[in-house]
């Protein structure tokens, strides 16, 4: 619980307009794509057409002979570099070496005077392959005669994000396994009054961001400088330092605005490749992927889950067991952590005395999977929250009441060893239920449900910042957090302005330049407001302490005589604003004070997760019983965010996340036919449109100041996604009486299930 419950806020907890709004809507915001360096060349990538094949030879002479081509880079031109990277497991070559592991994998890059010239040269690279047997599903990857994707032993990355071992690189196709267990599951299932059991499938999905991956690299004998659309510049710096064997100080990552990420821009993507191109071409190089190429770069892990859940005669959930198999594609990326997290997130925010969850992810010859908004939670909340409804139905309880009766309570240590629950699920569920009119009569073919999720946020507390208070009283925040559209450039200044008692307009942000801004581990796991926000708050207070000392010096009084007031200090009759303190101290209207803060896993951040990311969603849908098509009638989101530094932005995150979750529930799915991804373009991969939004939307926030972040804030922005697919599946069951255990719930799947039910009679 937060120690202070301040409520008389001046700047914080107000929906101030976002800082980057105007430049973005007028097209003036600078992204990496807008960047042009002197002498810059352009790269284009040749991709494998095979899912699994040995590279016999690559003849690049014809391509290199073309006018305008500087060089062609292949996996055989990387002598002097350590070409395998990965923060969890170093299994990923920056260009295919010896073999390719998925159709779409980069095999060579052409660097040329312009993009068109580079593109046209691609077809003059002759690659000879010897096709190998390929596997596309975890079941195929586990088969006894399955080909091995990775033959090498791997180094586990120090920055894998969890303490356990990595399973990859031990002579099987297993990438990672994880298990949690408490109580006695077998006994509980034997004694249960009711049990539900089923197999579920969560699809491969693509986190569509308007900006595809783009990076510009400038590599010379001493330094590597990269401008990139990366979410986590410091993590990418680490991979590049390893690839080039350089000290940290010689690698610089600069991230301007990012055009959306949703997990897809986290960790290292195209940066090692574009850096290798620059290193070979001896000039700055830009690599800008198309959306179609981005879809061949990353995706979410699809998950096959068997799950059963039991209740006793009093309607108490007594046990849950699950076996999950995830498909992580050709390279591990961040999937080992996805496995850990999805295992934990099977428990849902329920207090269940007997639990056994076993999870594994498998390498297959498909696009590598990695972080995706919700981070493994949506994959297991589809089964988890489906079974809550199924179980309620089985014991004749109202599913909403059943949730209320079993939800983890504030302060309850429902997950042994983890931070006690810091949310208020009862209030969240009540708010969602009320918003969608729970209990009111519904027309035929309509269904109404609520669902919730609570994730052990993966936000690892390692963050630092510097706040520069200038002599005119304005402030610059130096932050390693990236503005991805989530609003960090607005929220962080609100916190600094609140603390320093200065107008919001006077605070500016410099972000994500590893040579300038202090270290921040990542911009992910909904962590920025909680962790970077706390750092900004503490650094502001540290600056104030320094300025109190300076004021005492200026006023020639004892430090204890100086009292902090809003925007400055007072001592007896004398009152000085911060600008006056600084100007008088330096005897010039110039100079500055630097406040600093370092956050690590200690104090209030020693218990993990640093917060439980919690939300409830409610939906009403209707189903066209003839075609099976779903219409979204109502949506309610309830973000349990502790305190919203900027309520409008917090609600914006919730509607965004819920819409993304709705997309998975209704239509999003990457489809493989044989070795090829067949809907890898946004014309074929169906994303939600504005016209798909429900007719009625209510956005709510629950603000009990129960988080560890600034003023009791905690993370939000992912959780509303997690329960949406389950909500839609539950609502379909209530509307037309069929249980579908697979997302997306396409019209044809619903029609088929209804037909089967009718045929059975």
């Amino acid at each position, binding site marked *: 619980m937060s120690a202070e419950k301040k409520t008389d806020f001046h700047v914080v907890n107000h929906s101030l307009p976002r800082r980057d709004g105007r430049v973005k809507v007028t097209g003036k915001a600078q992204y990496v794509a807008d960047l042009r360096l002197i002498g810059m060349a352009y790269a284009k990538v040749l991709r494998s057409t095979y899912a699994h094949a040995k590279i016999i030879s690559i003849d690049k002479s014809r391509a290199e002979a073309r006018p305008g081509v500087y060089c062609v880079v292949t996996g055989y031109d990387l002598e002097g570099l350590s070409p395998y990277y990965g923060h969890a497991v170093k299994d990923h070559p920056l260009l295919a070496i010896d073999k390719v592991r998925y159709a779409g994998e980069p095999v060579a890059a052409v660097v040329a005077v312009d993009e068109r010239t580079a*593109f046209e040269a691609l077809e003059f690279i002759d690659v000879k392959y010897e096709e190998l047997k390929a596997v596309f599903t975890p079941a195929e990857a586990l088969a006894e005669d399955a080909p091995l994707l990775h033959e090498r032993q791997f180094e586990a990355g120090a920055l894998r994000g969890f303490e356990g071992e990595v399973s990859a690189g031990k002579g099987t196709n297993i990438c990672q396994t994880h298990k949690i267990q408490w109580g006695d599951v077998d006994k509980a299932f034997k004694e249960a009054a009711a049990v539900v059991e089923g197999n579920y499938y969560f699809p491969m999905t693509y986190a569509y961001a308007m900006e595809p991956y783009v990076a510009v690299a400038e590599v010379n004998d001493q330094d590597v400088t990269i401008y990139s659309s990366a979410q986590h510049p410091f993590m990418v710096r680490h991979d590049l330092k390893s690839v080039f064997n350089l000290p940290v100080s010689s690698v610089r990552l600069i991230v301007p605005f990012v055009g959306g990420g949703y997990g897809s821009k986290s960790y290292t993507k195209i940066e090692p490749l574009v850096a290798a191109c620059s290193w070979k071409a001896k000039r700055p190089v830009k690599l800008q992927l198309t959306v*179609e190429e981005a879809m061949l770069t990353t995706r979410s892990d699809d998950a096959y889950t068997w799950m059963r859940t039991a209740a006793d005669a009093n309607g108490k959930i007594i046990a849950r067991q699950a076996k999950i198999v995830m498909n992580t594609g050709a390279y591990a990326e961040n999937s080992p952590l996805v496995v850990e997290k999805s295992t934990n997130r099977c428990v849902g925010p329920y207090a269940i005395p007997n639990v056994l969850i076993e999870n594994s992810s498998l390498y297959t010859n498909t696009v590598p999977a990695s972080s995706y908004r919700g981070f493994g939670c949506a994959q297991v909340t589809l089964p988890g929250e489906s079974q809550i409804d199924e179980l309620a139905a089985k014991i004749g309880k109202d599913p909403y009441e059943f949730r209320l009766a079993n939800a983890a309570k504030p302060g309850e240590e429902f997950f042994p060893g983890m931070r006690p629950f810091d949310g208020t699920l009862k209030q969240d569920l009540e708010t969602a239920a009320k918003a969608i009119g729970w209990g009111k009569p519904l027309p035929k073919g309509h269904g109404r449900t609520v669902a919730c999720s609570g994730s052990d946020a993966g936000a690892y507390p390692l963050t630092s910042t510097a706040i520069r208070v200038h002599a005119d009283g304005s402030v610059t925040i130096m932050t390693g957090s990236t503005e991805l559209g989530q609003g960090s450039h607005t929220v962080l200044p609100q916190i600094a302005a609140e603390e320093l008692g200065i107008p919001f307009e006077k605070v500016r942000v410099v972000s994500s330049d590893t040579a300038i801004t202090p270290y921040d581990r990542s911009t992910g796991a909904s962590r920025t407001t909680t962790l970077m926000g706390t750092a900004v708050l503490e650094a502001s207070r540290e600056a104030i302490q320094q300025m109190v000392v300076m004021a005492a010096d200026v006023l020639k009084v004892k430090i204890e005589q100086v009292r902090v007031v809003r925007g400055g200090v007072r001592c007896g009759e004398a009152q000085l604003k911060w600008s006056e303190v600084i100007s008088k101290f330096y005897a010039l209207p110039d100079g500055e004070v630097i406040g600093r803060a370092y956050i690590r896993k200690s104090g209030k951040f020693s218990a993990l997760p640093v917060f439980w990311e919690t939300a409830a969603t409610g939906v009403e849908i209707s189903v066209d019983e*003839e*075609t099976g*098509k779903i219409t979204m009638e109502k949506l309610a989101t309830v973000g349990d965010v502790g305190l919203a530094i900027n309520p409008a932005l917090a609600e914006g995150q919730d509607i965004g996340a819920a819409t993304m979750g709705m997309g998975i529930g209704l*239509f999003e799915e990457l*489809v493989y036919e044989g070795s090829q991804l*067949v*809907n890898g*373009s946004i*014309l*074929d991969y*169906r994303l939600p449109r504005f016209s798909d939004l429900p007719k009625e939307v209510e956005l709510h926030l629950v603000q009990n100041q129960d988080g560890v972040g600034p003023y009791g804030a905690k993370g939000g922005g992912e959780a509303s996604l997690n329960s949406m697919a389950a909500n839609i599946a539950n609502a379909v069951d209530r509307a037309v009486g069929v249980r579908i255990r697979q997302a997306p719930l*396409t*019209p*044809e799947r619903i*029609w*088929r299930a209804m037909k089967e039910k009718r045929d059975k009679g």
Partner: protein
Amino acid sequence: MLGELGDKARLYAGGTELLLAMKHDLLRYEHLIDVKTISDLNKIELKNGSLMIGSTVTHRALERSPVVKENLPVLAQMETNVANVRVRASGTLGGNLCFAEPHSDPATLLLALGARAHVQGKAGSKTVGIDKLITGAYETSLASDELLVGVEIPIPTKSKQAAYLKFQLHERPTLGLALVLDVDGDNVTTATAVVGSVSTVPTQSGKANSILVGSKAQIEKQLPDAAEALAEAADPVDDLEGSAEYKCHLIRVFLKRAFSQALS
């Protein structure tokens, strides 16, 4: 020009199909000839009981045209639901028909309405039915030096009722179904049902059309048979839009809906 440049050149109207295909390197041309510069191809006119629509008329123009709304409301309503407003604003009717993408709304409706395409080539001009213009997926009967000038749609007589319905999941329709009925009191005297998007070209079935003639009450009972005949003729394919079985089911659902809409 087309005759001179041959395969290296291609006509270009709104570019919504052509430029996309070129960006993906599915098509390569050295020259694009802008048909929008040819005057008079962007007109909508009433002539001898027919609506004459130039090939460079955009979807947006058709959707908003008072002449179309008044004389052929079913066409305006169909156009309102084509693609999104950006595509409608630059995409043309001619481009839609000449690209012969299998998921075309206009092709399906125009076939049902008995529209004729006016084609001009070096050798002269000709007029062909929509089913003679569109011959397969991405295939037309146009010779490399021929240009679609426009289409001529006979305005249905007072006794005719038309409906166009579509079912769409992705960027393009999963199914489009057009139905034109000639009604005399409680009887339907002639009927044309066309289904599009479920297979390579819009399809009609003589058998289905004849089942759809007779007393309204009788037809109502025979709708499933008509749908079956239509589905058989269309022979839907399994693809990302859905299985053939599901599409056959959709033909049943939408023929029934179109029938009641046409008569309402």
